[in-house]
């Protein structure tokens, strides 16, 4: 961020603006940038998923609003925001309103932890990955509270399914991250990426990648582990009673979480913003000019998002192909197979380090 700060202050001096206000602005502006980026990404992502699912199932997907249906999700979002704010007559209205807000807010924090390129990393903490783990457990907790507060039987069932699932996928996720910390010797996300300059972690920890990938599908509450909102059994799971703005919060939050989780996968295993073969396209085409230095930042962001979209595509592919697990088989799968496998993986990685 220092490089950006210097550039920003230089710019402020040229237009004769107060330096103190500029410093305050600099701590706010990136958040605004992230928020705007988040909303745009999520809207794009929903369209992306619907289009891909459409082509998987011999349809065209949304294609009416705007060119190639590009404004469809925007129209949906506007519709949801304009809807009447329905309060529930029985149940806890305070928690009912609070849950989507906090669940969404937690996801925004997750977005701020991510290093999008070598410079743009707002919360560059030495324990970034720990912050991620802690904050990312918030949405699930508030999904539970949402179901609990809406006083609906389907929601309650969805809620306790979500809790049971949380307990089972957390262990593999945490243990896999431990194995990565073991390899890289750091908890800073930026340093984890830089560690992979020579070799991506996926090559030294392939089992960990598979385990982390499966567990994050469960964490994202997506098929085949979408038990807490299994629409054929529970109508809509924990957000059965939600509508309008508050539903939109959950919905946007779900996709924002999908995106940020896939970013995390690409950071931990696929080298994050590093280009494949460690060669920047900007350097190939333009040599070592001064402009390249700026272009490389954009290219890093491009590579990060490119890898992320590939992972998201594979997750959508899985959704288009597989049926849903039941509660029992899911818990069996996580506790009986995945958790022991993770521990074995961790032990192997540790011994390799020694």
């Amino acid at each position, binding site marked *: 961020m220092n490089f950006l700060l210097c550039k920003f202050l230089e710019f402020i001096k040229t237009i004769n603006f107060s330096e103190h206000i500029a410093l305050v602005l600099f701590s706010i502006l990136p958040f605004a940038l992230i928020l705007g980026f988040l909303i745009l990404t999520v809207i794009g992502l929903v369209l992306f998923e619907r289009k891909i699912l459409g082509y*998987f*199932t011999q349809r065209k997907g949304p294609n009416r609003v705007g060119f190639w249906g590009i404004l469809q999700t925007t129209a949906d979002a506007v519709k949801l925001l304009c809807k009447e704010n329905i309060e529930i007559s029985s149940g806890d209205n305070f928690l009912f309103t609070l849950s989507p807000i906090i669940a969404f807010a937690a996801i925004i924090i997750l977005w701020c932890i991510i290093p999008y390129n070598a410079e743009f990393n707002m919360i560059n903490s030495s324990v970034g990955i720990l912050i991620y783990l802690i904050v990312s457990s918030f949405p699930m907790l508030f999904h539970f509270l949402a179901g609990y507060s809406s006083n609906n039987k389907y929601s309650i069932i969805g809620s306790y399914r979500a809790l049971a699932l949380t307990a089972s996928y957390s262990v593999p996720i945490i243990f896999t991250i431990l194995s990565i910390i073991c390899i890289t010797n750091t908890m800073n996300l930026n340093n984890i990426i830089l560690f992979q300059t020579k070799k991506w972690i996926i090559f030294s920890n392939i089992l960990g990648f598979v385990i982390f990938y499966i567990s994050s599908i469960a964490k994202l509450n997506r098929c085949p582990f979408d038990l807490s909102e299994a629409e*054929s059994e529970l109508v809509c799971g924990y957000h059965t009673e939600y509508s309008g703005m508050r539903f939109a919060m959950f919905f946007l939050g779900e996709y924002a979480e999908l995106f940020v989780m896939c970013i995390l996968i690409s950071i931990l295993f696929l080298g994050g913003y590093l280009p494949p073969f460690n060669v920047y396209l900007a350097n190939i085409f333009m040599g070592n000019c001064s402009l390249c230095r700026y272009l490389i930042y954009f290219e890093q962001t491009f590579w990060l998002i490119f890898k992320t979209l590939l992972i998201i595509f594979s997750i959508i592919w899985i959704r288009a192909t597989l*049926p*849903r697990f039941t509660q*029992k088989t899911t818990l069996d799968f996580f506790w009986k197979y995945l958790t022991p496998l993770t521990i074995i993986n961790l032990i192997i990685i540790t011994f390799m380090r020694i």
Partner: protein
Amino acid sequence: MDKMILNLGPQHPSTHGVLRLQVVLEGEHVVSCEPDIGYLHRGMEKLAEAKSYIQYLPMVDRVDYLSGFFYSYAFCNAVECLNHIEVPQYANYVRVMMMELNRIASHLLWLGTYLLDLGAISPMFYTFRERETILDYFEKITGQRMMYNYFVFGGVRHNILYLDNVIKIVNNILFKINEYENIITDNPIFLSRTKGIGIISKKKALDWAITGPNLRACGILSDYRMNMHIYDDIEFDIVMSNEGDCYSRYIVRIYEMRESAFIIKQCVDWLKSNKKIPEPSQIFLNNFQKGEIYSYVEAPRGLSFCYLNSVGESTPYRLKWRTGSYYSTQLLKELLKGCSLADIMAIYGSLDVVLPEVDR
């Protein structure tokens, strides 16, 4: 643990209509289940007493909107037998062909919605794509996609049958069924959802009068197509499976579609080789016989009876339908006891219940 009473339906995404299941839950565990039917009762049987035979004929398709031809056939057959109306062999073959096409369409819809119940979204679109080809053909022939009103007393409404289309459709579907099997049959998640789930024993199946594919999946050889005279000259195998669980019901239906395609091909061959095409039936009932009669047909959802009692008036004195789904629904009470919440949909879906057929 406290027990929770959960009302699944009548407006629930996967009860395929308006079935209400009153389920007592203990966590995920189903303690007891009470199916509640009657939300789609249209009085098909009582209506028959107020309408003449010709007037009632178009309504018969609405007994089950997914397999209208079968009920149409059962009713026509009852009236024909009672009034001693001869049906030409040509019309019989047309009827068999149409009914088997309809059976494939019905099973395809079942396959798609069943996988949707299990949480897979794509197969529904695939099966609907193939079902569409059949419905398009029906539309071409009968003018309707669901309520055909094509069988009439003494034959079929007309004999313009685009037989080449049928061969094309059937070959395409035979090819696509293999594709479905590739994506579904060996899928471990599908196996874990269906194998050993919802087992109906032979005795239970017979006690509860289950018929059709559900009965054949229990290992009992029972197919009323064997006894129907219109199937006399047609070769076909009866598909059976021994386990009686959801998976064997799936397998039976998949193979039944292939068997139906085989029957259709025989019919098309016969119809093509037959040079003498009879005039379409134009029989007007004016001399009504007294008596009562049971006519039966092997519908996609089990054995269907049409009981017709006539006292020589222009309307039936009494008409009674026996439909397969009704008996499958009654079995739910025993079948769902002790399963988990997610299995409710797996079991209920596998029985292939269509609610209009239950309530009539």
